[in-house]
């Protein structure tokens, strides 16, 4: 599985309510469920006019298929090349 960052442009995304996010999550879960290939939605961040999602998938095509089925935009899909943080400060 490969990790991807998906940028979704949604005007005024920052104003989404808890109810709306729950609805989106339900739609997304159903889309994940229906794919028939290994797929995991890890987490999503809402920031300004965008939603940044972290998904684990076999390939980018599956990420796009998830977006189609959910009716979500997927303006940019980028494979994650590496992860690091405070805990990686020492080699």
């Amino acid at each position: 599985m490969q990790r991807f960052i998906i940028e979704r442009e949604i005007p005024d995304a920052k104003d989404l309510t808890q109810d709306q996010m729950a609805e989106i999550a339900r739609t997304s879960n159903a889309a994940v469920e229906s794919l028939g290939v290994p797929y995991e939605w890890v987490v999503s961040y809402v920031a300004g006019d965008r939603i940044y999602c972290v998904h684990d998938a076999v390939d980018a095509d599956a990420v796009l298929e998830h977006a189609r089925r959910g009716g979500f935009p997927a303006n940019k899909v980028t494979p994650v090349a590496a992860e690091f943080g405070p805990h990686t400060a020492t080699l």
Partner: protein
Amino acid sequence: MTTSNSPGVSPEDTYTQAVRLLERDAETGVLRAALGSARDGEGSIVVIAGESGAGKSSLVDALVSEADGVRVLRAHCDPLDTPRPLGPFRDLRLVDTSGREDASRAELCERVYDAVRDEPALLVVEDLHWVDAATVDVLRFLARRVESMPLLLVLTYRDGEIDPRHSVRPLLGDVASLDGIVQLALAPLSVHAVRDVVAGTHLDAERVHALTGGNPFFVTEVAKEPDRPLPNSVRDAVLAHIADVTDHDLEVLQLIAAAPDRLDNRVLPHLGVDLPTLRRLQDTALLTRTAEGLVFRHELARQAVESTVPPGGGPRLHARLLEALQTIEPADPAVFTHHAVAARDNARATAYACQAAEEASTAGSHSEAAAFFEIALEHLESRDPVERAGLLLRLAYQQYMTSRLAEAIANTRATFRLWEEAGDDDGLAAAHDAVALYEYYNAHRAKAEHHADTAARIAQGAGTASTYGASRATRGFMAYMRNDLDQARALATEAHEVARRNELAQLGLRSEVVASVVDLVSGDESARPVLLTQVEAARDRGWDELASTVYSQVASLDVEHGRLRDAEQVLQVSIPFADARDIPICRHWQTGVRARLQLLRGRWEAALEDAAAVVADDGMPLALVWPRLVSVLVPLRRGEHADLGVLDDAWSLVEQIDEPLRRLAVLAALAEAAWMTGRHDPRVSEGAVAHLDGLASRPGAEWGAGNCGAWLRRMGLPVPDVARSATPYRLVDEGRIADAAAYWARVGDPFAEAMTWTDSAVPEDRVTGIRLLDSIGAIGTADRLRVAMRQEGSVVVPQRPRESTRANPAGLTNRQLEVARLVARGLSNSEIAAQLFISPKTADHHVSAILTKLGVPSRRAVVVNAEQLGLT
């Protein structure tokens, strides 16, 4: 493909590559050049016609791939049994996709126009053979303005599927009359091209060409499976690709085939179609993925797969689709109706069809609205008579809106029994009042009056004031139309009283209008400004049909009573209003009145154009009298072949309508035709002679009677002494020929002016008349008079001119008249272009044509002679 504002993904990805373009160099060149012009701000239209599989979409694909820096908007019409109103524009997100659009048709047109007018754009609407009426309206609106926009509009359709009554006809007609329109008809491939496609296989190009007829889609399908036996049909060629798919995958394909518009991506989870299945189906090369969903790459492929659904299997597929579609937004009742009907789900078919019909009606797609109401009725299971009657009335209204009056009447009458069964007298009375109007528009006055009276009787018994008052106003209007003015006044007063007592504002204004038109037809010109105020009052309150009816009567009476310039001003405002507000009876009537106006003004071409427009638009019988007369009188006067049988149609119409003004007009035309051709016509020599006096005694009939009398006199028939005839006719009676001719010149009726001179006993006057007839192109009438003068032994008969030497607007079309008026006001070509939404080049073409037709050397001559040319 624009996907910036749509859900889904970008860019578009497809399962197949575009078919190679062969033998389409000329077409590609045309499209490329048109796109270049659009980039430079000068728009145009390219129409691509060809049979299914001829490569229309492939050609568009190639154009789209080159459209860098141009906004691409590409949409298809629906292959549903009844298309979604505005489907293409909804798919493009140019109109609200919620399906709850309640903007008027005019607003929708403006909205789409605003969306594509500023930046260079390529707008493609494919498969117009499936188009809905509202989309046609929007496209016509754009087509009229395309030259002034940076837009290339590409339209495709299968030419074999457009019959004369197809709703796309008016659009194709408009488009054909535009300058710079390009029509591409896609020819089949040659053997040579087929050889290119099958190169590298063992297939015999000549045999493949003979088998496929050179159809590019068919050829390509055959070439994809070169190792199989040659298929017998396109269907077999398509099915060869799925010979090896599993039953499960075939069922998924069948499910997709059951959604002829597209299978929305968002229903895939609900239908249990997973990604591995889609990837396997990708190998069949039958499907395309767009931002909106899954579609078959070609309609022929979809139909081939659909044909594999076993008998009885269809309803189950459609039921599954319907369940799935109901889970996503926006709900589209037109699509739901399609699936509910195919699923044999009556309850849902009726419910969704009603919703779809209301949406269609709001969007101005009345033929689709009627189709949906028919579906709703066909599947209605309820035994409630009121529910069924309500549906029938709504269906009838949509049928009236599309000029299907006989059906509208039949369906409204079918509700009588239902209202009686329900014991609902108010409903019954309202239904009779509706039939009264439909019968009247259908030119059946006697039936109309009967139903209006029945409505009043029932409503009075039931004590429903609004229906009673409305039926009295309806009857009053009909009495006015028949010049029974005392009765009309009494009925208007009664309706007004009902309105006052019950505070019914619209009925109040309606009855005041009837009173005002009665005054105007009686010769009280102070009623005219009152009527124009009443128009404004009706428009302010949104009573568009009432406002439009007032316009209809003012224009009609202006023309009848010689106020031609006033009539012209009213019609310039009122025809666009009736068109924008979608009031067909007024559009037909007013266009017919304008045909008559143009006839009187000697603008033969424009008169014929308006007459033909009413007929082409399935004009309602009541509005057909003038178009019928014009279509005979113009060729007769110009010395061309005229179909006199059309006058018999007009006669039958006025027999049914039975109104003095209409009857006098037809009698005058019959007399003119008899005078021209020398044919014996007892309707004239006996009927007209006997009835003229009676007809002339009706207030308001002074002009019609004067005209009819003048023709009878020219035929040498005994003319009863008509006490009341209009001024110019009276002047002739008094022997004041020059004064009468001058009067007609002021009115702006050159034909009447000329005929007045020829009525003189003085040969020189008659020569003046003949010369005038020659100058306005009424050569046929002039020739008739030349013969008469020679027979009398006159020596001063003027020669027939080689061509019209005096400037006159006889040959100008309505569009050219519009341009000519702007030239007369001193506008430059670019100013004219801006005002009429055309390119300066087209304005220049119009001006050249106008100068030629008017026989004047320069636009300055048009300005100087504007008055004489009748352009003021």
